[in-house]
């Protein structure tokens, strides 16, 4: 029976490449994969680092070993010289014989003036080997008896000349150093093999685990690009970086979907709110065309112009909101006396209130209220609030009673418009500042549904806050503007 096959290193590449691709394309794609690049990078970096470490350590170790050899040789030389001076040639030879019999014995060889060997523990050396006297040891090939056989070896040797003309060669075998070098070479090979295995493992891990999730992300985003905003990235629950990334991308997607929904509902609202008057316009024009009475046709045309003006006004309001919302920096900023501004608005709208049998008044101010801002925009925001209050802030059949109230604290000035109407249901309070919001209660009243949206945009532009409060009875809308 064959043992079950483990995953071969080729598996990730195969899963990542459609089978239809040619070998070249497959390799090209493989080289583009981040996993491959990363594994290669790890492989090269780790290998270089390991090699550097091994070279450093072996170089140092070799140097220490070499120093030790030199010291041992020097010690033997010193010892033999001392023995020679103390007891002559014979005593030195005895010592030499003793040293030569030790287990870690060095190399000893003595020749007379004629060059004939007289003592030593090595086979005969060529005369040239001991021809020179030197202070620094040098390498030398020699033959040694081991278990009755002659073995060619390499040694580090030094030669001295005694005062009777005899020459003494002292050396140490270099076998140990060679064995160490062999160990280092083996280590090198092991490192390379291990690095290849590690690189492969990294590639396997990255491509199978990490790249799979990245592929999921790109697959989801292609779905999103294709227009399916419902797609979400998978969250494994492990809480790793990928999960965190997926969670934040998912919340971003949710926000985008929400914004897209908002844009859609605004464009739906625009389409709906503009289609009605446009249809009315068309019907009137048609009726005028078919009316045989020229005077009636003329009247109808005038009505068409009025209707168009209302439409243009709605578009102007929409454009104005967009401009205010786009205006990151406020223009024409000046210090505005809010009392004077409110008085102007009262002056403009008082006749409208009186026409409806109601009142509009500015609650008396005892202080100066000054904010920095754009006069036109703040005036328009207040005009819209007053306009709204006069239109919707009245109970059935009752006259509107609208008040403007200004108050301030250290940082802000609050401009409020109060009516005594039916108010706005709690659930609708946030919605009233959106474009084209027309509450059921005011469906049939004239208006574009854009007034409060502009107020909100102006307040946001001035970094202020807008608040709605139920006065029971009545409604108070406040613009809090920073000083």
């Amino acid at each position: 029976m064959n043992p079950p096959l483990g995953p071969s290193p080729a598996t990730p590449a195969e899963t990542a490449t459609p089978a239809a691709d040619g070998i070249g394309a497959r390799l090209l794609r493989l080289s583009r994969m981040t996993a491959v690049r990363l594994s290669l990078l790890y492989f090269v970096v780790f290998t270089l680092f390991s090699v550097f470490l091994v070279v450093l350590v072996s170089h140092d170790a070799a140097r220490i070993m070499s120093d030790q050899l030199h010291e041992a040789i020097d010690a033997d030389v010193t010892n033999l010289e001392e023995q020679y001076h103390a007891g002559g040639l014979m005593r030195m030879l005895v010592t030499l014989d003793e040293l030569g019999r030790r287990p870690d014995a060095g190399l000893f060889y003595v020749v007379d003036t004629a060059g004939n060997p007289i003592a030593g523990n090595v086979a005969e050396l060529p005369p040239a080997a001991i021809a020179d006297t030197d202070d620094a040891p040098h390498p030398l090939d020699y033959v040694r008896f081991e278990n009755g056989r002659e073995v060619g070896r390499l040694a580090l040797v030094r030669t001295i000349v005694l005062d009777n003309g005899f020459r003494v060669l002292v050396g140490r075998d270099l076998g140990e150093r060679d064995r160490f070098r062999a160990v280092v070479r083996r280590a090198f090979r092991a490192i390379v093999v291990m690095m290849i295995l590690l690189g492969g493992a990294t590639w396997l891990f990255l491509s199978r685990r990490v790249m799979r999730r990245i592929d999921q992300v790109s697959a989801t985003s292609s779905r999103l690009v294709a227009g399916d905003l419902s797609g979400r990235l998978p969250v494994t629950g492990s809480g790793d970086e990928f999960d965190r990334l997926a969670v934040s991308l998912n919340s971003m997607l949710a926000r985008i979907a929400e914004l897209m929904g908002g844009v859609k509902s605004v464009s739906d609202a625009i389409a709906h709110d503009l289609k009605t008057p446009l249809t009315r316009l068309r019907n009137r024009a048609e009726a005028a065309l078919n009316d045989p009475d020229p005077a009636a046709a003329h009247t109808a045309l005038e009505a068409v112009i009025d209707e168009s003006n209302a439409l243009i006004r709605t578009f102007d309001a929409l454009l104005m909101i967009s401009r205010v919302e786009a205006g990151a920096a406020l223009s024409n900023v000046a210090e505005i006396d809010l009392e004077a501004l409110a008085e102007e608005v009262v002056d403009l709208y008082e006749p409208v209130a009186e026409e409806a049998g109601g009142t509009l008044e500015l609650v008396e101010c005892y202080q100066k209220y000054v904010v920095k801002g754009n006069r036109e925009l703040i005036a328009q925001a207040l005009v819209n609030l007053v306009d709204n209050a006069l239109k919707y802030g009245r109970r059935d059949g009752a006259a509107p009673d609208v008040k403007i109230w200004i108050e301030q604290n250290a940082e802000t000035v609050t401009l409020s418009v109060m009516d005594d109407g039916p108010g706005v249901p709690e659930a609708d309070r946030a919605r009233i500042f959106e474009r084209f919001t027309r509450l059921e209660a005011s469906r049939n009243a004239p208006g574009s549904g854009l007034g409060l949206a502009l107020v909100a945009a102006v307040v946001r532009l001035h970094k202020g806050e807008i608040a709605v409060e139920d006065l029971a009875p009545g409604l108070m809308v406040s613009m809090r503007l920073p000083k």
Partner: protein
Amino acid sequence: MRILIVEDDREAASYLVKALKEAGHVVEHAADGEEGAHAVSTSTYDVVVMDRMLPKRDGLSIVLEMRTRGDVTPVLVLSALGQVDDRVDGLRAGGDDYLTKPYAFTELLARVEALARRARPGEVETTYRVGDLVLDRLAHSADRGGEEIVLQPREFRLLEYLMKNAGQVVTRTMLLENVWDYHFDPQTNVIDVHMSRLRAKIDKGQAKPLLHTVRGAGYMIREPAK
């Protein structure tokens, strides 16, 4: 009156030329910036209508050049941009009035007429007369047929502006800009309410009304037809 229209939009320009000619003016048309600059430097006009974005040369630079030369011909600047700042830029460059594209032709015609009237040389009028209606700008009083009309300060300014442009259409936007200094359009026709009040004070009980509503355009105060 000689009027120069510097406008590259052929259709708009030809309509304006036709409408202004029908109103009895002499109209010339320049289709690009260089032509316009040449025209204002070689001839004199009573009013210039200058599009801001023109081929070959920017409209505002022509206005600036005119003012540097000491040419005080009133200029109405037209712009497609229509931001609050654009208006300020236009007026700063020396324009006398500013209108955003797309505009209603009646609005533009009314403004051209108003500019021409403003520039008309002559003594500073201290009294305006329309029929038997008299407005004394120094005494801040008005009367009709010798009978005093009591006016609120705002009503006085409204009537003053209308009488200054007597015989010509004054649009609601012009009233908002000149009487209230508001360059936006309230959603409700507040001007109509003010006008009906003013009308009640001026024309009520009179055989010949002076204040007229021009449908689709605005208002006009004029002499009663003989």
